Every structure is written in structure tokens, then in C-alpha cells.
């Protein structure tokens, strides 16, 4: 399979005003800092990490939907989309669509469901009215909504149904890539399962590529083909599904996985919970070495001196940590000694 999306050295900075002494001064917050990855066609790359780590910003930059200063390259089917303007951008927007977390606020309350779904067709394509109607009818069926629901307004739907409307809207332009930013976080578990099954079915049917952001690692494990773990704007680990969950290498990834509460009593007994104390550092005042050093249970003096680079340990597994040796995690080394 070929790389559909190829991200090189993507950096996003926001101008912010910071109070310091008597005067507020203009400074930059680097929300996404020099990240690179590729996603193959038809696959799902999950992005995980704590709140504020830059997941949404990275994904929105890839959809050209972010207001910050962006540098680097985002190649979609081999073509850099960051310099595009006007007509070319329209074409690109058809290929990259977004599903948002909150099915309540992301739909215009004054529009009927069918108009919400066809909105991207109106603004991005020059299809005829009958063509658009035909597409909307098909989409309603594809996402499991009934034809008579086309005329209803968002408040007349449940949360799960609203998310189906959002999905139908994202599908309307036959996109290549769909960015799913916490698409099920606002939903109850039963409805979450309905939506996750739908997303996977649609992916198989239409060969969709997903960038899937979620803080729920169980959901990520179920949905992903590979995972990028972000911490303070950096990718700290990026691996295929099996490697990431079975052989995590970065101390932060291990802490994240061990923090998930488990229903399995055997798992709970065996779990060596790695508690990482405190909070992440101030994004406007990042340390010069490893950004995780202040919370890392195995931080060494060198970690505070220089930032680790994201290096490949196998062809499908990259990690940014000074203490990873070969394919051995520093925490495993610690508990063995």
C-alpha cells in the first residue's frame, strides 16, 4: 500500500500574549513541534496524549483549518497542501474532511439534517441539485439514519444520531482522509460502540484513511493500525498497533497504558502501575532537554541536557528517549535491576 499522507517537520505556532512584570509581551506557543509521520491509504493512525499535547492542532493543520503559523510539509497523494490557495484548496478540502467531538455544537441548529449533510457539496463541488439529493439519500442510508429524518433539525436527534449526521456530512465529498477528533468521547458507551462499528464499516467499504484522536486507549486499540503518542507538541513514540500495545518503549507511553483502569482482575494484579507525578511543563517555558524529564521515573542527567530525537528501532517503531537501548524499554531495565 502507498503512503497517502506524508507529513514532514510540521510545526504550528500560536501568537499569545504573556504577562511578565509590568508589560504583557507577545510570544509564541509552539503547539506542534517538528513532527513527521506517514499514513498509508485505508489505514487508521491514532493520535494519543494528554490534554494540550497538540493532537487537535496537528490534525487541524493537516486539514488546513488552523489559524497558527504553520511550517513544514503536508503531502496528500504526493502534493504539498500547505501552499495551496483558492481552487486547489477547494479540491483539497473535498479530500480531507473532519468529524468533531461534540455532536451538539458542531451542527448548525437552524439547519435541517439534509442541508447539513449536503453543505460540503454546495460549497466545494459543482454537482447538480438532483445529484446532490441522490448523494444525500445514499449517505443517510449508509450511516443508519431513516429517510424521513432528513427534514428534522439537530435538536430532534439523540447524541449518537447527531454524530451520524456529522459522519454523513464528512463523507459527502467522497474524501480520502477523515480526521476524527474525539468522535465518541461525548457519547455513552452503547452508542459509542454503534458509532465505532459504523466508522470501521465505512472505512472498509470506501477505503477511507482515518486520523483518529482519542484519549480512550481501549478505543484506540480497537480502531488503529498505528499510533503516534504526543507529549507537549512532540511525537515521543510512533509504532504499529501490535508493537505499541505489546512492546511500548517510551516511559510516557508505558505510564499512559498502565493508567487505564481494567475490568480484568488478573490484569489488575499484574499491572505495575507507573504513576507519573505532577503536571506537564508550561508550554511557554519548555525545558531544553527531554520534555518528559520532570515526570519521568527513570530520567537521567543527560535527559535534562539534550532533547532526544525520534529514532527508528524497527522499520515500524520510532521512539524519542535517550535510555531506550535496542528494543528494551528503560522501565523494563529499571524493574529488572
Amino acid at each position, binding site marked *: 500500500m502507498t503512503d497517502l499522507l506524508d507529513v514532514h517537520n510540521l510545526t504550528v505556532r500560536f501568537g499569545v500574549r504573556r504577562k511578565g512584570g509590568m508589560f504583557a509581551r507577545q510570544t509564541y506557543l509552539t503547539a506542534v513541534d517538528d513532527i513527521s509521520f506517514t499514513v498509508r491509504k485505508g489505514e487508521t493512525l491514532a493520535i494519543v496524549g*494528554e*490534554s494540550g499535547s497538540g493532537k487537535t492542532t496537528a490534525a487541524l493543520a493537516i486539514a488546513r483549518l488552523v489559524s497558527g503559523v504553520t511550517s513544514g510539509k503536508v503531502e496528500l497523494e504526493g502534493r504539498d497542501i500547505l501552499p495551496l490557495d483558492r481552487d486547489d484548496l477547494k479540491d483539497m478540502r473535498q479530500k480531507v474532511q473532519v468529524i468533531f467531538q461534540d455532536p451538539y455544537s458542531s451542527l448548525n441548529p437552524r439547519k435541517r439534517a439534509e442541508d447539513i449533510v449536503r453543505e460540503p457539496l454546495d460549497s466545494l463541488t459543482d454537482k447538480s441539485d438532483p445529484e446532490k439529493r441522490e448523494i444525500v439519500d445514499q449517505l443517510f442510508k449508509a450511516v443508519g439514519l431513516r429517510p424521513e429524518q432528513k427534514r428534522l433539525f439537530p435538536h430532534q436527534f*439523540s447524541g*449518537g444520531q447527531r454524530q451520524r449526521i456529522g459522519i454523513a456530512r464528512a463523507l459527502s465529498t467522497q474524501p480520502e482522509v477523515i480526521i476524527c477528533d474525539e468522535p465518541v468521547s461525548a457519547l*455513552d*458507551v*452503547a*452508542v*459509542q*460502540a*454503534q458509532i*465505532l*462499528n459504523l466508522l*470501521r464499516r465505512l472505512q472498509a467499504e470506501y477505503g477511507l484513511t482515518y486520523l483518529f484522536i482519542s*484519549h480512550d*486507549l*481501549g*478505543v484506540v*486499540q*480497537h*480502531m488503529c493500525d498505528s499510533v503516534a503518542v504526543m507529549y507537549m507538541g512532540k511525537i515521543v513514540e510512533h509504532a504499529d*498497533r*501490535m508493537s505499541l*500495545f*505489546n512492546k511500548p518503549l517510551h516511559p510516557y507511553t508505558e*505510564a*499512559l*497504558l*498502565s*493508567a*487505564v*483502569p*481494567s*475490568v*480484568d*482482575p488478573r*490484569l*489488575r494484579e*499484574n499491572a505495575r*502501575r507507573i*504513576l*507519573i*507525578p*505532577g*503536571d506537564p511543563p508550561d508550554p511557554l517555558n519548555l525545558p531544553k532537554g527531554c520534555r518528559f524529564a520532570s515526570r519521568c521515573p527513570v530520567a537521567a542527567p543527560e535527559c535534562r541536557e539534550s532533547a532526544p530525537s525520534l529514532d527508528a528501532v524497527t522499520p515500524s517503531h520510532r521512539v524519542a528517549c535517550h535510555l531506550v537501548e535496542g528494543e528494551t524499554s528503560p522501565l523494563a531495565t529499571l524493574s529488572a535491576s
Partner: protein
Amino acid sequence: MAPLLKVENLRIELATRAGVAPVIDNLNLELAHGESISFVGESGCGKSMTALAIMGLLPEGIGRVASGSIQFDGEELTTASPRRLRQIRGNEISMIFQEPMTSLNPVYTVGEQIAEVLRAHQGLGQKAAWAQAIELLDAVQIPNPKSRVEAYPFQMSGGQRQRVMIAIALACTPKILIADEPTTALDVTVQAQIFDLLRDLRAQTGTSIIMITHDMGAVAEMSERMIVMYAGRKAEEGPVDQVITHARHPYTSGLISCVPHIMANLTEERHDLTEVPGIVPGLSEFGQDLCLFAPRCPRASDKCLSARPPDVPFGSARSSACWHAEDL
């Protein structure tokens, strides 16, 4: 020993535009001294309402106890005076909520807010209250409590604000701590810190805990016993590990199997998630004399629509409100 909390045949009615509906419909439960139980279920099933009823905080003019009783340490709460209920809320039963930002006052420092509770409920003087506020911040593991006591809520992270809420809830060493989705708004690593903190505090103080959550993993980590609620009724009750390994109610099974639980030794294999079709009914459908789960239930039969299933006991600690519980 007599239970610390005993809820019997409790019926709470809410007056809504659509009419009066039983948001809690004949609920029975007990909580022992030092015990931790969880209420589980999708949103809209009445978990928070149960907690608010115990706290004497039902929405004024809308909710009322229609029948039944809530006994706390032998004392009847449903008929207690507002003054007595305030005393109990301050000193014996405390509650923490999902979004700590909305429950903290943005214009006072966290120290002032903790000290205020200590002055009002324990009659401490200014200085003693302040000193104890610092101690409490230390107990909930806020770093540098001596300086952080002067911080305003907005200067703290979400996890720290929840710790402050826990500090306030603990200020009066309550006998029961009710935690309503205390970590839903937090990252997993912070959730793990908060759970650890709650477990430690419980071990040290012997406080009973009622956890409200939709996360079975959290239930398993935090509680010995769980109560599954559906549409204002108790669907199933029992020791957590027993219920998880062998659910006696189709709703419980559905809740467990629809979630993609994280696996220790992941394999390439992937199946579709089990779906529980449909959604929780609206309040106006509560209270009918039938099984309210029937439209979503894979085992529903005619009998399920003919009458409300009673709580069927399984041994002394378990029960299930399902006509077909014996076959599950």
C-alpha cells in the same frame, strides 16, 4: 453491624413539562461502614439523582421524595429539616462533581475556600482553619501547599482543581464521600493519580465511598460492589468481580461487552463491538409496568412487556431485575 446508609423503596418524582415521572422508581440499596460501591449505567439512568436525593439536594420545586426512606446511621433523612440536612452535608456526607471548575468559586483563593468550610462546619478560628487548609492540600498531594494555598482556581490544572474539591469534601472527615464522575474530564494519567488518592484516603480515614461512573474499569479499580441502574431502577447488584465475570442482567452484559477494553496481550484479531441498540428512554417513559430495557434487549420475550421484573436474589449479595435472570 447495621449499614451506614440504607435506602428503602425510594421513589423520587420529577415534575417536568411532560408531567410527573419517577426518576427513581422503587430503589433499594445499602452501604456498609468503610465500603466503596459504584453506581453504573448510561447517562439519564438516575445515578446523579440518587446521589442528590441522599444529599438532600433534589432540584427545588421539581424533584421530591414521593415515598420510601433514606436512613443514614439510623437517622431518617427524607423527613429531616433543611437545617439538619445542611449539617449532615457539611459534616457527614460530602460530594464531589465532574467539573471542578464550576463547583469552585473563581474569585476566592483555594485556601480561602477550604478554610471557609472548616470555619463553618468545624467552628475553627481563622488561623487554625488556614493551617488546616494547608495540611489538606498536602494530604491531596498538591505540591508546595504553603504557596499553592494562595492560588486561584484558574491558576490550577484540571487535576489539581479536582484535588482541591476532594480536599474541601474531606475537610470535615465525612462518613460518606459521593464522587459523581470525578475523573471524566481528566486525562488517564491524572485519573490514575486521583483514584490512588481516593484509595489512600479511604484506607486512612475509613470513609465510605459512592462512585458514580460509566467506566467498568473504574468500577473494578475502586469498588467492592456495584449497582447497575437503568431508567431509574436497579437492574443488577453484586460484588464487582462476580458481576463482571458473570452478569445476571442483559443490560450489564451489554455495558461490559460493548466497550473495547484494553487487552494485555493484543492479537491481530479484531471483531465488531457488540452493540446494544437504541438509547436510554426519556423520563416520560419511566415508571411503566414492564421491563424498560425490553426495546434494547436481545432476550426480550412477551413476559418482559407484561410486567415489571422484580429483584431476583442470587445468594445474599446479588440480585437482578430480569424475568430471565435464572437462565443467564
